[in-house]
């Protein structure tokens, strides 16, 4: 047992020695405690009043998802299902469909997701879907999921997930693409994704 060292420097050995008179009076310790708390009383409060104020979130924040469109406004998702497989919380479900003629401006590939749903109450915001995606279609963003009183609104469909067509209102996820990711994607093997 003796060669077991404490895991942290903060651990203290519990002592059962008799307390000295000063310690047994309690009052000095009590006063010390009161002084500690009163110092906190006057300290600046770190509280952020949320709906009015928001704490700045970093670009790599993993908030609610977005289904990206490509530069021509076509949905990148081909409903391959890799994200659903990767999802540890099994929050993603989808139904694939075939692109009809005349829909080329909507979907990039011949196959697309007719239904794509993420249950935001199950999601743990791990980002594995993003990593799994071969088409760079799904990304986590720095936006938050809004609160609600019911459960069903938390199941986000394509109406909420797919980013708007309007190029001005596209959601920028470049912040999530770190330098390493970008170099990795220069690999010619992934050229089809660009």
């Amino acid at each position: 047992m003796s060669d077991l060292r404490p895991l942290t420097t903060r651990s203290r050995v519990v002592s059962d020695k008799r307390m000295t008179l000063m310690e047994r009076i309690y009052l000095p310790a009590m006063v010390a405690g009161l002084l500690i708390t009163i110092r906190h009383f006057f300290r600046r409060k770190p509280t952020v009043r949320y709906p009015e104020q928001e704490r700045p979130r970093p670009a790599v924040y993993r908030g609610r998802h977005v289904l990206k469109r490509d530069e021509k406004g076509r949905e990148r998702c081909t409903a391959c299902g890799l994200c659903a497989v990767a999802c540890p919380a099994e929050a993603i479900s989808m139904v694939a469909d075939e692109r009809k003629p005349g829909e080329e401006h909507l979907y990039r590939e011949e196959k697309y997701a007719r239904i794509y749903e993420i249950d935001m109450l199950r999601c743990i915001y791990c980002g594995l879907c993003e990593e799994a995606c071969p088409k760079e279609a799904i990304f986590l963003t720095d936006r938050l999921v809004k609160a609600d009183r019911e459960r069903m609104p938390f199941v986000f469909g394509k109406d909420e997930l797919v980013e708007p067509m309007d190029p001005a209102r596209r959601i920028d996820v470049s912040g999530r693409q770190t330098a390493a990711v970008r170099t990795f994607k220069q690999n010619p093997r992934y050229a089809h994704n660009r």
Partner: protein
Amino acid sequence: MTLATALFLLVLFVVTLTVAAYSTYAERKVAAFLQDRIGPDRAGPFGILQPLADGTKMFMKEDFIPAAANRRLFTLGPAIAMITALMTGVVIPWGGELTLFGETFRLQGTDPEIGILFVFAIVSIGVYGIMLGGWASNNKYALLGSVRAASQMVSYELGMGLSIVALVMLNGTLSLGGIVEHQAAHGWNIIYQPLGFIIFLVCAFAETNRSPFDMPECETELVGGYHTEFSSMKLGFFLFAEYTNMFISSAVISTLYFGGYHVPGLDRLGLDPNLTTLIGTAAMFAKTFFFIFFFMWVRWSTPRFRFDQLMNLGWKGLIPLGIANVLITGTVYHLAELWKG
């Protein structure tokens, strides 16, 4: 009883309830501030309407009485707690004399010769509210809570009484008004009775069931203690009674040890007597509020005692200290008398 007294009592009643109500708000604010938070701030500016919201909520809740409870006592418990909590304020001197419309009033309900004993007596009856309420719930946690409350309050009343004995020996009167006047003439009691003050303060914490002596409602062990089974305004009464008690004991502490409405040097300024009185009353409330704050400050700074530690402290610590304090006070007083000749 004159109309003036009746009016004064009505005002006192309202003030007491208001202070108690806002103590709940203050408690949450103080707790938050001590923990680097900002506390309730949604209901009104700075959350100032929070007590009203709480009260409304309490009234709206279903008033539930458990099937196996003793209905009569179950209702009687919170009532006793509330009544006894409100009764004590009558004998506390909130200020000096006020002259209005050619008549002179004292800002005190009544000043009986045995004022301090009256406070004691009412406090000792207050236990019944907790005991009956807890027992009538027919719930083991509630019973344990009320048993703890009773033993705690009976035990600490002794220490409190002893600390008062020394004080009374010095002041030569049991009347609260008299004690304040004595302090105005001879200096505040805290100077002469520091030990007595500490004993009284600790006992006051125990008597009001406040942390670190809040064993009767100790959540981690007893769910809610004596008020586990209570809901709606019955629960509200219990909580309210606790805050009222805190207000009253703060007022008693200020009266007994900190000169009550006396402000040193105020007489010499030659102000209008009415103004002096009002400043005095303001001072009294300031002192009282400080102690209410102190109650909260301690609650959010110290962990709870264990029940055997509580009993040990009361019986083996405070009571012997109280007796020693009486002896020391008596000896010194006697020697001082001899010295003066």
